[in-house]
């Protein structure tokens, strides 16, 4: 057997979890729901976002400006100051986004440190990188929508960043602004990106989950209540307020940074744009390559013993990775179905062996007959 868990980071993570277990018990250990936590915050964001969407007006200005100004900034102001609990929902929407990034980072670190990101999990890792980029970009568009000073700077910085890209830079800029300059159409495009891409997350999550049987996507209610309570406390302590309304004629120069979402703008401000894109692209590629760095022997996939399989499909139901498919049995078989292993999905964990009452599926490197004779030898010696 290979040496397991020798990495100091892994050991540290396991000790931390052991310590958390002593306080929270394994049933409520948040580390055991690390993937479900961002998913929970996603639902919070959808619900609060729905309420904000009901009153949000995606324009930068409007023809009746003199009388009673109606635009993105004033609609956000209306949500915050007039609608009952509007400020609470706005605050929850902001901080749930931050919490989502935080829990995604926790999720990434845990799967990395506990070695759960390679081989048969490659689809999860790669789709996870894409999902992370999507979440960061969606979060940034959220900051444009408020349409205060900061939104204006961020928009202009993004435009100049796109401008720095060769070939695709121009079209990207036009797409981003929905035209050649900032207009009402720009904000409606931002709103579309913000919401449309959020629904795109659901598609990404489907790919993220598709190779897993029964993915854990909901933390236990107790954890959910605690998370919402923490969220509300943060909202109460640090209420969200907009800056001044953006004026296209002005050139604001500094803004407050939200380190969960806006760190790319800090990079933009502190390095040449070419270097910024290089860091971003190389960083993403490296992130995608992480699973390929560890050298481990390939998984030896489970093998079905064809003449023993009765087609009962217990292994197929129990396989944690959806790696066993029941196919029609060949003609002449006594049974209707036959289990087949999709080797590229198989983790070699042996859960299917435990599920089989007919010894009809085996790990090639650890036959269950060998295990049984090992048990007998140990008992009888």
């Amino acid at each position, binding site marked *: 057997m290979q040496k397991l868990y020798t990495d100091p980071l892994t050991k540290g993570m396991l000790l931390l979890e052991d310590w958390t*277990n002593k306080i929270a018990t*394994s049933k409520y250990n948040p580390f055991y729901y690390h993937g479900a936590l961002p998913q929970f915050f996603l639902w919070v964001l959808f619900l609060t976002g729905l309420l904000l969407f009901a009153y949000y007006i995606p324009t930068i200005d409007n023809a009746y400006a003199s009388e009673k100004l109606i635009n993105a900034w004033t609609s956000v102001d209306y949500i915050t100051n007039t609608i009952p609990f509007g400020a609470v929902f706005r605050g929850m929407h902001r901080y749930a986004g931050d919490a989502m990034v935080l829990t995604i980072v926790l999720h990434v670190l845990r799967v990395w440190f506990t070695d759960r990101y390679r081989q048969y999990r490659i689809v999860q890792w790669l789709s996870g990188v894409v999902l992370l980029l999507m979440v960061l970009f969606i979060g940034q568009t959220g900051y444009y929508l408020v349409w205060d000073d900061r939104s204006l700077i961020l928009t202009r910085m993004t435009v100049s960043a796109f401008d720095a890209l060769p070939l695709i830079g121009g079209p990207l800029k036009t797409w981003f602004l929905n035209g050649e300059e900032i207009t009402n159409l720009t904000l409606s495009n931002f709103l579309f990106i913000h919401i449309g891409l959020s629904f795109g997350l659901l598609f990404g999550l489907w790919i993220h989950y598709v190779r897993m*049987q029964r993915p854990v996507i909901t933390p236990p209610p107790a954890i959910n209540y605690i998370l919402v309570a923490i969220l509300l406390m943060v909202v109460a302590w640090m209420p969200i307020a907009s800056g001044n309304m953006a004026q296209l004629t002005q050139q604001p120069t500094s803004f407050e940074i939200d380190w969960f979402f806006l760190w790319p703008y800090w990079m933009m401000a502190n390095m040449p744009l070419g270097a910024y894109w290089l860091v971003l692209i190389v960083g993403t590629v490296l992130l995608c390559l992480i699973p390929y760095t560890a050298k481990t022997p390939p998984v030896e996939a489970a093998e079905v013993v064809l003449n023993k399989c009765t087609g009962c499909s217990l292994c197929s139901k129990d396989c944690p990775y959806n790696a066993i498919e029941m196919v029609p049995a060949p003609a002449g078989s006594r049974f209707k179905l036959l289990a087949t292993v999709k080797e590229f999905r198989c983790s070699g964990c042996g859960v299917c062996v435990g599920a089989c*009452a007919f010894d009809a599926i085996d790990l090639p490197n*650890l036959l269950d007959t060998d295990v049984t004779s090992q048990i007998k030898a140990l008992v009888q010696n």
Partner: protein
Amino acid sequence: MADSKQKVVTLICERSCDLDASLDATGHLKEVSEVSVVKFPCSGMIQPLMIEAAMKSGATGVIVTGCQIGDCYFREGNRMIRERLIGDRPPGLKKTVDRKRVIALWLSRPQTGRFISEAKSFVAQLAQLPAPAPALAPATAPAAAKPAAASAKTAEAKKPEKKSESTPESGGANGEGK
């Protein structure tokens, strides 16, 4: 040590508590020599048939050990064997297996000490149970009420069908259902 004739087999996930340093060359625990250890890549691979095989070939007790529930490296293996032992998921453990002689422990990697102390107390409890007639004899009538219950706690001693251990009619004769 070795005072009794207890022979306990541990079926353990290799990612659960770290026993590498606690085993002697023959696969027995150094501190509790009655307990031998068989490692699996995942506790989900453990077949109830294996537990029955161990009992049939003379083991007086079986300890099933997986990682903390919720922390299976392969996502669900420990839940699977847990549900199989309880009887919630086929294939289950035969009724002929004396439930007092099977416990399950869910332990994380650093909990080696916990495993050894649980193993010790399990061996002690087995010694108090009425001697098992060799090879799966009919269980004895006066159900020894007190023993196993103690080790429950968080580690969850597994005895779903508490008192009513079965009185099998067929004794050891029933093979492995094949």
